[in-house]
């Protein structure tokens, strides 16, 4: 048996080290500048380490809790970059003292990373809860914002409830199979399909709560509205990417096309999320809530990709995650650039007041709406191709119909920005770092939309051996092996 930590990707120790360093720095003397430098350096170092050769997974099936495969590397890259975007957005926004903000951000990122690569219930659960607890601190970070506490307590209660349900599901799964492997239990167990299905249903509740799929989405708009902008971005992007990665791992190897309750539940929730998210965003006057609705809808689209096995399913989901991350982070960065202006009415006339900012925002919204030439169009096309090749007709119809609803509210914001400047507008400003971030994200969103081939090749290459399937096909840890092999 290899040493238990040998297969660990270097990005995790790097993040741990960064957290320790940041704590030391706080203990010595507080400084927001130093904190953000340490945080960004840690994130980028961890990002760079994704290319290290250690990442080649040793392939020892016994005692493997963590699989640093191509899927992990891809997801980890997205997580680290979107966390870095959150950190940049938080600069001079985090509140006082700001240091812990970056500390919590790093902790949350660590949790997300762990979740993306874990194939064991224990590890997955720890990652999930590390993310969750860090988020709690981040949501309630602003003492001035009166809604922060309310958002935090809502998140606490509901996350606690969903965690308990998830844990109970995991326990049932363990009771049924005797394995802590984080994977959808096989229905062909000795006890019949009822218990595995019940366990799956409970686990899915926990996952869908964090992913905010309808009907487990109710917390998201409230929490995102109450949270600071960088945190809202963290919830909408980083945490969702990690959760989706875990969901994909959970179902890797399970045939989702079989007509049983798990596939059925996923399909129903996908349709509900597409329509629910878009309809919810339709009537919003608050940009944060609008983006919350939009992110719920995007979860629905991602589920369609997950439900379309075949050569495109997971690859299109991976591509979509990147597109979603770029555009949503960009939209939040643009909000940050406008002094955190979240009221849509406040964005009127932005094309005249701040043309560059308005243009960037328009690019992000167009990408989210799936209009060419932004990357979102291609991402959605890719998912549609995946869905068509798997013949998920109902889901495709739902995707198209709900996307049309989506067009309205995204373009509504663009329209507001094109209106004449209202008389009572107030000046908006952001930070230079944030401007750089917006510019970079806008360029990525446009360029990747014009030349998506490169990213497509990347996603296909990473997922080529379908390591997710491989992870699930590992033999479960036999109950006695570990105990008595020492």
């Amino acid at each position, binding site marked *: 048996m290899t040493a238990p*930590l040998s297969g660990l990707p270097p990005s995790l120790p790097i993040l741990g080290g960064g957290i320790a360093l940041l704590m030391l720095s706080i203990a010595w003397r507080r400084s927001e500048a130093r904190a953000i430098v340490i945080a960004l350096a840690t994130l980028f170092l961890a990002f760079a380490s994704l290319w290290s050769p250690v990442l080649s997974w040793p392939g020892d099936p016994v005692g493997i809790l963590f699989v640093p495969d191509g899927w992990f590397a891809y997801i980890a890259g997205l997580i680290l970059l979107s966390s870095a975007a959150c950190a940049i957005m938080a600069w001079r926004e985090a509140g006082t003292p700001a240091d812990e903000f970056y500390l*919590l951000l790093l902790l949350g990122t660590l949790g997300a990373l762990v979740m993306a690569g874990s194939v064991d219930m224990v590890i997955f659960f*720890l990652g999930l809860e590390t993310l969750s*607890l860090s988020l*709690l*601190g981040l949501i309630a970070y602003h003492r001035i914002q*009166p809604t922060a506490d309310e958002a935090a307590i809502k998140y606490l209660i509901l996350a606690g409830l969903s965690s308990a349900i998830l844990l109970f599901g995991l326990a049932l799964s363990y*009771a049924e199979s005797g394995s802590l492997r984080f994977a959808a239990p096989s229905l062909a167990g000795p006890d019949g399909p009822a*218990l595995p299905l019940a366990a799956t249903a409970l686990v899915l509740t926990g996952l869908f709560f964090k992913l905010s799929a309808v009907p487990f989405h109710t917390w998201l708009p409230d929490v995102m509205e109450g949270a600071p902008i960088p945190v809202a971005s963290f919830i909408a992007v980083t945490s969702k990417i990690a959760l989706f990665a875990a969901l994909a791992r959970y179902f890797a190897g399970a045939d989702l096309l079989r007509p049983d309750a798990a596939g059925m539940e996923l399909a129903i929730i996908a349709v509900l999320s597409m329509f629910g998210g878009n309809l919810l965003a339709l009537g919003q006057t608050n940009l944060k809530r609008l983006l919350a609705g939009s992110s719920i809808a995007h979860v629905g689209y991602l589920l369609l990709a997950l439900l379309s096995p075949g050569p495109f399913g997971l690859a299109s989901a991976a591509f979509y995650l990147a597109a979603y991350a770029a555009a949503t982070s960009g939209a939040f960065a643009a909000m940050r650039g406008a002094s955190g202006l979240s009221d849509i009415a406040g964005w009127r006339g932005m094309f005249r007041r701040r043309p560059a900012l308005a243009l960037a925002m328009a690019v992000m919204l167009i990408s989210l709406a799936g209009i060419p030439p932004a990357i979102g169009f291609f991402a959605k096309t890719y998912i549609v191709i995946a869905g068509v090749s798997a013949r998920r007709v109902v889901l495709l119809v739902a995707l198209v119909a709900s996307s049309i609803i989506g067009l309205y509210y995204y373009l509504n914001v663009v329209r507001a920005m094109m209106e004449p400047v209202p008389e009572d507008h107030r000046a908006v400003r952001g930070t230079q770092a944030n401007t750089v971030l917006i510019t970079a994200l806008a360029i990525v969103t446009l360029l990747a939309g014009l030349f998506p081939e490169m990213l497509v090749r990347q996603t296909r290459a990473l997922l080529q051996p379908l390591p997710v399937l491989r992870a699930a096909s590992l033999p479960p840890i036999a109950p006695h092996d570990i105990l008595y092999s020492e």
Partner: protein
Amino acid sequence: MSDLPFILFSLVAAWAAIMVVTRAVAVHALLYLVVVPLSLAGVFFTLGAPFAAMLEVIIYAGAVMVLFVFVVMMLNLGRSDRDRERHWMAPAVWIGPALLSGLLLIALCITLRTIPPTAASDAMVPIGPQSVGLLLYGPYVLSVELASFLLLAGLVSAFHIGRNIRGTGTGEP
């Protein structure tokens, strides 16, 4: 005869849990809440997990519950709170939740009834601290590391949130 402790502890735990969710006075509920982990520790013991039983008593009934007690004391709840609580617990309020919880209970019980006993011998095999430790510091050492980060995240969050309570606290409109 050997089943008696299990049944006893189970009944106590269930009773205490029901009492917790139905008490109007927070302190009473809290005291019943202490009973839940204590009786559960007994259940753990009968299930052959003495190590878990000890931890349940020490950490749960000891540390976590003390935290609750501390907060309840700080909140300084009085008679008006109890009356309001009674008012909130009108019978109509319980219909929906009871329906949902009941359905959940029935569905899970039906499911669990399908489990046959495992092939392993039905006799309880005690699993002591040693085997747990071997597992924990063997293959699961990563989880220990991660648990420390989990606690750190909780600590930092609680610390930061708690810091803002001092002083005026109600500075906002």
